[in-house]
Structure formats: C-alpha cells, structure tokens
C-alpha cells in the first residue's frame, strides 16, 4: 500500500527522456555553480537541493578565462551578461568538477559547446562516456569556425551538427536553442530531425547598454545577453512555436521567478522549466518555484503535460 505522501511524490515526479525527476524544475546552464554554492552554504545545499536535475555551466574543449570585466549590467526587469564561458576545459572539468558534481543528489546534465564539429564530437564522446552524466545539453549559440555561421541560427547547421553527434552517445541530447532568430521552430525541427531528444530555450537575447557615466558600452565586451523577467514574453512565444513544431520535450526558461511564471511555461508546452537569473536573487529559488508550481493548481492548462499538477 502506498501512502498519500508517496502517491503525491510519484504523481509529481516527471519522466524526462527516460530520466526520472522528482519535480519539473531544473537550473539554467551557467546560472548556478553547485560547487561554489556548496562551499558557501555547506551541506544544507545538498539536503535541500533546489533543482530536480543539475545542469552544468557550459564547458568547452580547452580552458577559458572568460571575458574581461565589466561582465554584468542591470537593466529594466533583467540583466545583461557577457561572462564569456569561463571554464576549466574538458580535461579539467572531468578531473576536478565532475567528481564533485556527482555528489549532488540529482541527475547531472552537462552543457557543452565547441566551434567545430570535431571538437563538439570530442566533448560529446568524452562526457557521454562518464556514467555520472545523465544527459548532455548542446549549447549551439556558437559559430562554426568553418562556415562562420552561428550554428543555432541555421536549421541546416543544426541538423548537420546533430547528424555528426547523434551516433556518438546513447545518452539524451538536449539542444539549447538561441532566441536570436526569426524562426526558432525551424531550428528546433531541424534538431529533432537530427535526433535530438529534447530542446531547451531560450538562451539570452543579444543586447547591450551604455554606461551613463562614460557614454561607452557598459560591458567590456561591447554587448551581452539579456535575461530575467524582461525576456519572459519572448521566451513564451518561442516556446509556443517550438512545441507546436516538434514532438520532443522542451525545457522552458527565460525570466521564471515564481510558480505562476512556471505555469505559463507549462501552458506554452514545456515539460521542464529552468530557473536562471532568479537564482541570483534567491539561491533557493528553484525549490520555491517547484513548491509554488505544485500548489498553483492552475484552472486549466492549454497543453497536455506529463505531470499531475494536483
């Protein structure tokens, strides 16, 4: 006999590409460093881990220091960032970070990016070979050095990349779409065609600001990516379009701050939702959004969703 509590747990759980998650709220790549957070908050982080899966910051084949500061700038109901993907590179990540991330109480999704298909392949093979890794997210907001095109802006580039990567791992491949396109659904459909198991969206919008004190671009890199509540309506529309054009599950994100926002993303077709910028304002935001989502009991959801919100 299962208790009411267990039944609640099980109806609340969600299956995502064969991975069983305790609830539908994960983190957005690059907005939570679980290793640093554990140093700051101690093991309380693990006891009350805010996400049902952990998505790593994007890693690249070689180490990167990231961009020169200034890297962040606040904007109306949002922020710009031009962090520049600082990371230890594939070897450093596997040797130093992965063992620590494996201690988290939830499945691990590793985000990877490269500027050519061979390097992308190296990342997917090496990361996919590690049993600590449940799934791989492909950050395709990157140029293909050969074509010079941003992969995620072109359905053809995206499909070609998927064709190259799909045979290399049996693990779920999630394609992280860029929002800076006219037709994100076409890119999503190409990803699905190439064998993607899921898509996630949106990444940040290309944006900039000027420092009123100097009249110069506020970010040292000149421009950056916009995130936070300001972009939420853009994310919802892209998610609607993408989920109408594909059969694979979507991880929806972009300005989610609370359960009501998450309900909107689920109504727009998301299977999972990801919390990004809001974690900066509240390190436990993921857990709060999950709890609020659970008690939201929305009157009606437009899209059928694989989770019971009762």
């Amino acid at each position, binding site marked *: 006999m299962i208790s009411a509590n267990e039944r609640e747990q099980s109806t609340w759980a969600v299956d995502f590409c064969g991975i069983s998650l305790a609830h539908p709220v994960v983190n957005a790549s*690059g*907005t*939570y*460093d679980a*290793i*640093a*957070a554990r*140093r*700051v*908050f*101690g093991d*309380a*982080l693990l006891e*009350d881990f805010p996400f049902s899966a952990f998505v790593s*910051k994007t890693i690249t084949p070689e180490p990167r*220091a*990231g*961009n*020169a*500061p*200034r*890297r*962040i*700038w*606040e*904007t*109306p*109901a*949002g*922020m710009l*960032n031009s*962090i520049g993907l*600082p990371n230890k590179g594939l070897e450093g990540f596997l040797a130093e970070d992965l063992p620590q991330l494996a201690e988290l109480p939830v499945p691990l999704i590793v985000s990877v990016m490269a500027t050519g298909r061979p390097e992308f392949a190296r990342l997917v093979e090496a990361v996919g070979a590690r049993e600590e890794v449940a799934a791989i997210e492909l950050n395709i907001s990157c140029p293909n050095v050969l074509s010079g095109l941003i992969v995620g802006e072109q359905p053809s580039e995206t499909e070609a990349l998927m064709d190259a990567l799909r045979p290399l791992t049996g693990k779920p491949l999630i394609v992280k779409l860029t929002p800076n396109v006219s037709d994100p659904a076409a890119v999503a459909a190409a990803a699905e065609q190439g064998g993607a198991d899921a898509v996630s969206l949106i990444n940040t919008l290309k944006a900039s600001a000027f*420092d009123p*004190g*100097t009249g110069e671009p506020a970010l040292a890199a000149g421009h950056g990516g916009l995130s*936070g*509540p*300001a972009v939420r309506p853009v994310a919802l529309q892209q998610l609607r379009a993408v989920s109408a054009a594909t059969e694979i599950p979507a991880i929806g994100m972009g300005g989610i701050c609370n359960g009501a926002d998450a309900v909107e993303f689920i109504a727009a077709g998301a299977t999972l939702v990801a919390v990004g*910028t809001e*974690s*900066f*304002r*509240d*390190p*436990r935001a993921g*857990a709060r959004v999950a709890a609020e989502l659970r008690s939201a009991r929305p009157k009606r959801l437009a899209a059928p969703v694989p989770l019971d919100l009762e």
Partner: protein
Amino acid sequence: MSAPFGRRSCEVSENRASAGYRVFSLLDPEGPQPAPGQFYMLATAERWSGGDGRPFLPRAISVAETGPAARGVRLDFLIEGVGPGTDRFCELEPGERVWITGPLGNAFSEPRQQHPDAAGAILVGGGIGVAPLALLRRGFSERGVPHRVLLGFRNREHSGGLELFCSAAGALCPEVRLASEDGHAGHRGYVTDLLATILAGDDARSGVVYSCGPPPMLEAVRSLCAAHEVACQLALESPMACGFGACFGCAVPRPEGGYLRLCVDGPVIWGDEVGPTAADADAGARERDLRL
C-alpha cells in the same frame, strides 16, 4: 562556517543618518555571527524596483557592525546612496523587511596569521569603505591586537560612519586619525599621505595593512605597501549579481592571468594577489580620482 542556505527575511530595527550616509540595522534571527570583511546580498522585501524596473538584482553590502539581538544577531550596514538600490536602503523604515543572503565572502585575517611576530595592524579606510573596518577594529580592540586607524573622506558630507569607531563614551577612539580633502577634520589631504608617513617610520615594517575604499585609494595603498614591503589586505568591490559564485559576474583580473570571482575568492585579497588594474577594476562604479 557556512551561510544559511537561501535568502531570509529580516526586520529593520533602525535607520539613522550618519553625515551624508545612513546606517540601518537588521535583526537576523538565524544569523551566524559575520566576520569582518564579509558582506550580505540585500534586497528589500517590498518595492524592490522603481518605476523603470530597477533595482532588480540584490546589492552587495559589507557588514559594518554587529551585536546580540533578542534572537540571533543585529547587523548594521553603512549606506551611501549612489543609485536606485542604495537609495531604497536609505529610506527603509523600522518594521520593513529585507531579504538577506549571507554572510558571504571571506574575512580579513589576523596580523599574526601573516607574520608570527607582526607588530600590529594599520587600518586604512576611505569614504564608504570605512564600513568593514569598523567591525575589524572592534575585534582588534577586544582581542588586544595593536592597531592604528587612518580614515579619509572628501568632506563632511562623506564622513559618515565615524561613530562606528567611537568608544562607549562616544568619543572617537584614540587610535583613529583622520584626513579630509577639504581640511575640515584632521590632515588636509589624502588618507594615503598619513599611511606614507607611517610606513616611512621603522615600526610599521612588521605590521599588516587592512584597507577598504575607492579603487584609486586601494591602488595607492597597494603600491605604497609593495614599495615598503608591508603586507596588505584589500577589501575590493566589483559588480555582483549573486554573491555566491553562481554568475561569474564579479571577475577581478589576477596578475598571473585569469580572474578571481570576488564574491567567493574575496572580497578580501592580499595586495600581491592583485595587480594594479585589479585594485582599480571596479573603477566604473566609483569616482575615478582619489576622492573618497
């Protein structure tokens, strides 16, 4: 000692003027005792956001003083209103609530940790940078660590927080020396003039300098100390979105290349861990000249 996980809501118990700055107090029922140099990420619970959608992110603020409260600890923050976030803190009223995450970051260390035979400490603060030195100075006093305090400011308006360096009787502690650019109090000129004089004397060599203030002042302190081969710890600032290592926004260049994350690797940095540009990396956020 780790910070409680997540943000928590604390009540404002007081908010008073201190020259052109404000000092407000929060009652943190859960709070561990913060160490000097640490900071909190703060955002008001209500009306964190003006008509133009800012402030949006929480703001990093050093703890300036702390004491026991009925439950937990009292936290005092010294605020200079320079934008929508600090302006909102300035107008907080008792009974309002503030979201806090922290204490965050590392702390100043004891002089003896650096030199087993360190003669003592020299604290050099400028403008709003006096905040973390107040808590540091009280600890040194209580533990009998010999120290001198040099505080500088532009003018009376920018001389807030001085009462945090007062004895119980309300008089400025005898170990404090002042400098002001307009000469209204203490030495007319920069606080680094006072430091230069002290470092020129023999007795300072085995001391440790602790400093917080505007980037150009920190850079002057760093290079003076380097020239005199005196160890120094600098509490830096950089733009912060999260304060707990999540956003990588608070990067400060390291002399050997690459970047520190100031929120988790700092905010207190040994002088030789940063290069000249790093001490001035957040120049955009502060006056570009030596004014305090």
